[in-house]
């Protein structure tokens, strides 16, 4: 594990990477997303775990994205993800619709190193009808007619997320957001921004260990204070609802989005690197 500057962390995401991102309320790596846009990354294949928020909308609007696999794209109370919706309408974005537990389950399959995992429900949904990569099989444990969905393992190239802190071993603390652990375990490696570095070993502290993702999975870390903003971080700072609402309004138009990018992303390297 190495500690890098934010832009160096962003440089570890190659064009075309299959990149897993958490939604806005789950330690979303907003500062890294902005750095990725500044570095002009292209053809990302994103996975919203299990949904997509502002970060995905920014990357789509900035032209960095080839496809998005997700259960939903939404800004929460602020409504539709505007650039995502516009790209779907324009046909410029490949959307691979899923349903939340299917994303968790496919990642759990990768986490365990098994090629598939079953999931109840979903049969009869058009989500399934549009997923030729998903199979329906007969439950092998009953002689009854019992069709069940099986999902192929989903192994992202990279999981990116924000955490409260990292230690020198690359262990990072995400607290109760354990869906991030599944995502990190399932991915080839993780890139993590943190509020701060701490000394010692987080896994040696019985109080902290349960909320830790082991450095085994972490390729590199960058300090990005308030790096989830405008998302929030557990009880450290709340989401900036006013900002998200303003974004939702402004990004309805291409021009508004361009203005937002110019103001908050392209000229913000100094502030994100702080």
């Amino acid at each position, binding site marked *: 594990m190495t500690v890098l500057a934010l832009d160096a962390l962003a440089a570890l995401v190659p064009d075309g990477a299959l990149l897993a991102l958490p939604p806005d*309320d*789950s330690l979303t790596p907003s500062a890294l997303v902005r750095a990725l846009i500044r570095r002009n990354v292209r053809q990302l294949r994103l996975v919203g775990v*299990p*949904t997509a928020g502002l970060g995905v909308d920014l990357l789509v609007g900035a032209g960095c994205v080839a496809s998005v696999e*997700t*259960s*939903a*794209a*939404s800004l*929460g*109370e602020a409504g*539709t*993800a505007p650039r*995502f*919706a516009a790209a*779907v*309408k324009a*046909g410029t974005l490949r*959307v691979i*619709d*899923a*349903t*939340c*537990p*299917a994303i*968790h389950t496919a990642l759990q399959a990768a986490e365990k190193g098994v090629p598939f995992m079953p*999931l*109840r*429900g*979903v*049969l*009869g*949904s*058009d*989500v*399934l009808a*549009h997923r030729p990569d998903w199979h329906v099989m007969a439950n092998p444990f009953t002689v*009854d*007619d*019992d*069709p*069940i969905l099986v999902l192929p393992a989903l192994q992202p190239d990279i999981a990116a997320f924000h955490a409260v802190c990292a230690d020198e071993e690359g262990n990072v603390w995400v607290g*109760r*957001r*354990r*869906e*991030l*652990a*599944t995502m990190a375990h399932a991915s080839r490696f993780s890139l993590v921004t943190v509020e701060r570095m701490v000394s010692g070993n987080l896994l040696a502290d019985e109080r902290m260990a349960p909320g830790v993702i082991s450095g085994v999975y972490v390729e590199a870390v960058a300090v990005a204070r308030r790096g989830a903003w405008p998302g*929030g971080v*557990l*009880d450290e700072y*709340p*989401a900036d*609802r006013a900002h998200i609402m303003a974004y939702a309004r402004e990004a309805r138009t291409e021009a508004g989005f361009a203005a937002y990018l110019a103001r908050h992303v392209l000229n913000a390297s100094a502030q994100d690197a702080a």
Partner: protein
Amino acid sequence: MSSAIAPQERLIASVARLIMEKQPTGRLHVAVGMASPVPAAACWLLKKSGVPIRISLLQRQTGGPFSEGGRELFDLAGQGRIDLFFLGGGEIDGEANINMVGTGAWPGTEVRFPGSFGSAFMYLVTPRTILFREEHSRRVLVDRVAHISAPGRSRPEVVRRGSAQALVTGRCIFRFDGDRFHLASVHPGETTQSIVENTGFAFEIPDFVPVTPDPTEAELALLRGAVCDEMLTTYPDFCQRVWGRSPAEREKTQA
């Protein structure tokens, strides 16, 4: 006497009554998804009334009921440990199919809705689902959804614990019998005729259609007090709109 009853207050009380209609033998466990202030308020109303209900609210500023991250809700539901869930949809049809994906060609080239979230799973594994959609128009309540995020009915061989119990809208309450919707009550100002005119699907109309009852005085007091208190940080806009209260005001009151 209370000030005028807000439409949302009636919806909240209606949802609360539907929740209480079929109690399991154990403690009722109700989960409420994101961006669902009316269902959340209905659960809080019951809890503040002393009903031993367990509420798992997915939308919270901090904290939350789970320690396995967002996955735990779905695992619980997969086991059948969530008794009741709420779903909405950009389109809902007469077979209780819901469309959260969009209209036009897949994946929503005409209008893109946010997406299916967990609906394709939750609708089948949860014993009861209350459908909630405030907008009641032929745009939303359609004869046939453009795409099925989650089906209202399943073939007999498909493992399914339940389906829609009811559909609550800004105009009325429908019940679902597993095949079709039945008009159960109309909100004040609505008539059977106005419901027919604004509904894109066919439904059963009983001989007598009651008016949806008002919340009681006790319910209103709870809604405007203890329930709003619980909702202020999670749904500030909703609380401002319905009750004219903001988190800042609460802090002032407590200070």
